[in-house]
């Protein structure tokens, strides 16, 4: 699998570290809603098909990326930097 890092270009899977589901929203840091925290920490959509997920280019620029990838065939549809302000505001 090759991932097209916006900073570094297309690089091999072995340079990246998978950081999991990118659809969950972290509750407000001060929130005391345990259910919301449980949902955030433990529950995931885990779809068969299009999956939105974080990867870190650990063996490269170390940026976190938001990737849309098909879990049925590993085809990558889009790659963007996780930090929105680095993307000109069009992703993440």
């Amino acid at each position: 699998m090759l991932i097209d890092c916006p900073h570094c270009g297309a690089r091999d899977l072995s340079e990246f570290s998978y950081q999991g589901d990118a659809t969950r929203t972290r509750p407000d840091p001060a929130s005391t809603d345990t259910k919301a925290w449980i949902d955030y920490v433990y529950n995931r959509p885990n779809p068969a098909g299009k999956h939105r997920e974080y990867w870190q280019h650990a063996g490269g620029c170390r940026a976190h990326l938001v990737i849309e990838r098909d879990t049925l065939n590993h085809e990558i549809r889009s790659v963007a930097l996780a930090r929105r302000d680095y993307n000109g505001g069009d992703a993440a």
Partner: protein
Amino acid sequence: MAEYSAFSLLKNAFSGNRDWKPAWRKPDPKPNYDVIVIGGGGHGLATAYYLAAEHGITNVAVLERGWLGSGNIGRNTTIVRSNYLLPESVRFYEHSMKLWENLSHELNYNVMFSQRGVLNLAHSPGQADAFIRRGNAMRHGGVDAEWLTPCEIGRKVPGLDISGSARFPITGGLLQPRAGTARHDAVAWGYARAADRRGVDLIENCEVTGFLRDGDKITGVSTTRGDIRAKKVALAVAGSTSRVLERAGIDTFPIESHVLQAFVSEALKPFVDCVVTFGAGHLYMSQSDKGGLVFGGSLDFYNSYAQRGNLPTVEDVTSEICAMFPTVARLRLLRSWGGVMDMSMDGSPIITKGPLPGLYLNCGWCYGGFKATPASGYSFAWTIAKDEPHTINAPFTLKRFERGAAIDETGHGPTPKLH
């Protein structure tokens, strides 16, 4: 249907093997069952068998999307062990071990459970202490465990690099003598045949496309072979858990599906007797009765339903096996394959009633579903039949995450890929 035995083999040999009957029937689904088990893998088939054998519930259908045993029961590295650290796990897997020890007789099917031992190698004083802690936990839980010195390890497993100059020198090893390997497909077929003999309908090529409901309550399933109603619907679909639950309206769940690759070398004359695991990485290896070295390592580390992995993992696993057994470098990899693992948030399974009325759930097996097959089926059948958990699966609830009672063998926390 005939009992399998040396005598029946002989009798059939004389009649040219023409009189053997199908190992199980191929029935059409009935409109109604007491229990539907979704998933014709090891756990689903075992559940159906124990429902019939232990609880007398025989009006049961097992629905399988493909062919029986097509999931992880036929894609694993066949290791059976109960060498766990936490008391909940020790109790559960040791129950399983006891069922394994009599399984061939119970099923009248040789599942080839061979108690050749599982040896975990330790490579630093800290790791040795951690393994001894686990071994002692096993002993206190009534499970066999022994500590081997590097010298004893060298005698037991020739070919290992036991020199002090190894990159990760071996400081000792935790041996569970009663652990071993079994013939994975035979487990599925044995349970299938035994369940079928007790009246369970095993229905292949029948995919569940939706759930029938009465309000909140699940009352049956829609399938590619029509609607089927049941008092209770039980799910044992491993890596497909999230996909099936989605059809019941549950969109998020504490499971991630990951691909795990497994490997086998060409067949060799006896080379290694017990199962060996390498502690300076993640690797497990044994030799099958056919002679192939069967081995595996870590996940590919990304969500996947593809049953195929990628090259970096192949390279990682092979470099670890070469570090452990430098002679294996010269031998050849014959086949690799991938399975989809249902990775849970603490590395332990979920066997429970719910999460909807009429629904029962069995999932979260991570790397270790094969060895659990008998206890999983046994306790799941108990839970379905009695509407309450058996003592061995009582801790393995879905609620444990809310309570903070994770059963975390590795201590990695809610990062499924690390369990």
